[in-house]
């Protein structure tokens, strides 16, 4: 089945004239399935969206993770609208900023303070600078292939770089504690921070959970060596534990950065930290004209309250378990070598031996023809707006796509 796409294509052609590449970044059509996904969305509600050609999609990307409670969640929209009626950006912050910081420091067990920005990148980069200010050391350690944002020290693109951009970035393979230990040894007293995601969710490949002793060793080594441990919880935050993903994996970072689901689609990011980093944090300049946006803060406050009240992380994990088990059973019936990698609330499907991704691309193409928005290159997201009936429908359609895939082989 091919979808209607006249309006999408027409808009995209206009965009090409006035926007470089038409659409850029992670939502650029070439990053997904250019002729199977729509280019533009008209509206979204709950776990479904309608594209500009009127096609309806059952969504498993949730705005690439930004939507946790469902699109246009009525409670969050109400809070945002209430604040919007008073204004969004002023000369001074709104009282909601204090309330949000108080809520975060209450919800997140190690957090003594909080700052806000708009994107994950704003604060992953700032957190590294805080660690440098605190330790007086230049180097930062990250996992190979991990995404931490669009700044020059870590972006996945190629253009506009100079050699020095990454001269103080060291990398080790996820879960390889020998490599990690060697870096700490070779750069003793020179490493300011280790920045990691709670589990390895690099695009274009299977996700990897931490090995049983991974976080224990990383946390211990950071403490022993005076290194600041930064958790990049931008993508996973809110989907593994309502109090932060460190609780799911049982460790404690020094700084943690959140965005995506924090505002349920409203642009906001936050960095929380331990008391001992408060002084350093005051020395590292941080600002943006619209970063005190009270509407996004009101949305984030409500989003966090809903997460606590409804135990949303647990809920999306349960729904994810149900969905992943259903897909696995379907693949097993068809004798397809298939697994779901990563946590069930943000799973990434993987066909064994499909290192070049042809099979997952075909599967997602077939699923797209049935109105399922399954991304072939990025982990999927479960939204709490998904009911079990939605998941059953998705499993039925995905089963049909898998059968067609099997018949192609």
């Amino acid at each position, binding site marked *: 089945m091919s979808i209607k796409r006249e309006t999408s294509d027409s808009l995209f052609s206009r965009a090409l004239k006035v926007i470089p*590449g038409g659409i850029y970044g992670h939502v650029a059509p070439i990053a997904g399935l250019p002729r199977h996904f729509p280019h533009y969305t008209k509206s979204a509600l709950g776990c479904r969206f309608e594209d500009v050609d009127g096609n309806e999609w059952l969504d498993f990307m949730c705005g690439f993770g930004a939507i946790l409670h469902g699109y246009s969640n009525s409670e969050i929209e109400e809070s945002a609208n209430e604040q919007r009626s008073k204004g969004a950006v002023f000369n001074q912050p709104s009282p909601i900023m204090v309330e949000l910081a108080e809520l975060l420091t209450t919800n997140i067990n190690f957090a003594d303070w909080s700052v806000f920005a708009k994107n994950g990148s704003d604060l992953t980069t700032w957190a590294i600078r805080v660690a440098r200010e605190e330790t007086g050391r230049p180097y930062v350690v990250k996992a190979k292939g991990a995404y931490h944002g669009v700044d020059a020290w870590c972006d996945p693109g190629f253009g506009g770089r100079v050699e020095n951009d990454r001269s103080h970035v060291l990398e080790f393979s996820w879960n390889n504690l020998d490599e990690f230990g060697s870096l700490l040894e070779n750069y003793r007293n020179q490493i300011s921070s280790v920045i990691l995601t709670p589990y390895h969710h690099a695009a274009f490949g299977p996700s990897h959970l931490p090995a049983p002793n991974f976080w224990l060793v990383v946390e211990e080594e950071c403490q022993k060596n005076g290194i600041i441990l930064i958790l990049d919880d931008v993508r996973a935050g809110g989907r593994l534990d309502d109090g932060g993903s460190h609780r799911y994996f049982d460790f404690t970072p020094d700084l943690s950065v959140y965005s995506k689901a924090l505002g349920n689609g409203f642009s906001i990011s936050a960095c929380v930290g331990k008391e001992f980093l408060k002084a350093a944090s005051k020395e590292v300049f941080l600002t943006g004209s619209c970063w005190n946006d009270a509407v996004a803060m009101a949305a984030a406050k409500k989003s966090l309250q809903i997460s606590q009240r409804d135990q949303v992380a647990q809920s999306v994990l349960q729904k994810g378990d149900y969905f992943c088990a259903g897909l696995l059973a379907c693949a097993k019936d068809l004798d397809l070598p298939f697994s779901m990698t990563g946590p069930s609330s943000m799973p990434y499907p993987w066909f064994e031996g499909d290192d070049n991704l042809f099979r997952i691309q075909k599967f997602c193409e077939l699923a797209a023809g049935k109105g399922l928005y399954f991304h072939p290159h990025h982990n999927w997201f479960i939204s709490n707006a998904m009911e079990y009936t939605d998941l059953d429908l998705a499993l039925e359609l995905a089963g049909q796509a898998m059968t067609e895939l099997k018949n192609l082989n």
Partner: protein
Amino acid sequence: MDVTKDRLVPYAAALSLEAASLEIVNLFHIGKILDVTLLDNYYIQLGGKGLCFKDTNLLQAVSTGFAVPRLIPLFGNFNNAFTSILMLLKIKKILSAKLLKTQCISVALRAGLAGTAAFANHDVRCRELLSNEKEGRILFQVYGTDIAIWFSFSKNELCRVDSGVIDVQPTAVFTFLNLKVARNAISGWFDHLGGPALGEAKISGNLPLLDKIGYISRIAQKAIPSII
């Protein structure tokens, strides 16, 4: 082989000519392969002894279709030089042809990718981009034709460009919608972000690798002059 930074562009241009000659011989079973030899003092030899250009003259030849070669080796090896010149003229005719013919696109595509391979092999920044890749076999094709140009590399070997049916699984596949789109791409008029979105090309397989090769190809295309 080390190619100094100041000789990379003429060397890449010469390798494009060599690739074009290979494809012409492959398609038409006539002519001579213009194998490239980098000589001292900024000279490049094409097709064995006889036809030799100063680096700057070679770049003039590929951008305008004409340049004066060194005369002493030419007259000293006239027959060989003459057959090389005939092949250069054949390449010029094919690359500047107005009509869209499968063979012309095949020659131009292979020539263009050979320039990309030269940059992938000898430009520090481009080499660095591929340094973490173990191997790759990217198939470039044009829908509805039998054009099949392969850009391949492995950890221990330089990047290379071949054509035709090869019995291996590609790592990624880039399929142009038609000859016109392929021609536009070779001429630098293909929007690598917009084209696939509008169905002018289909991409599949290992896209991060394809992305890297695409970036290198744009660097090479910007640097190497062309008659197209």
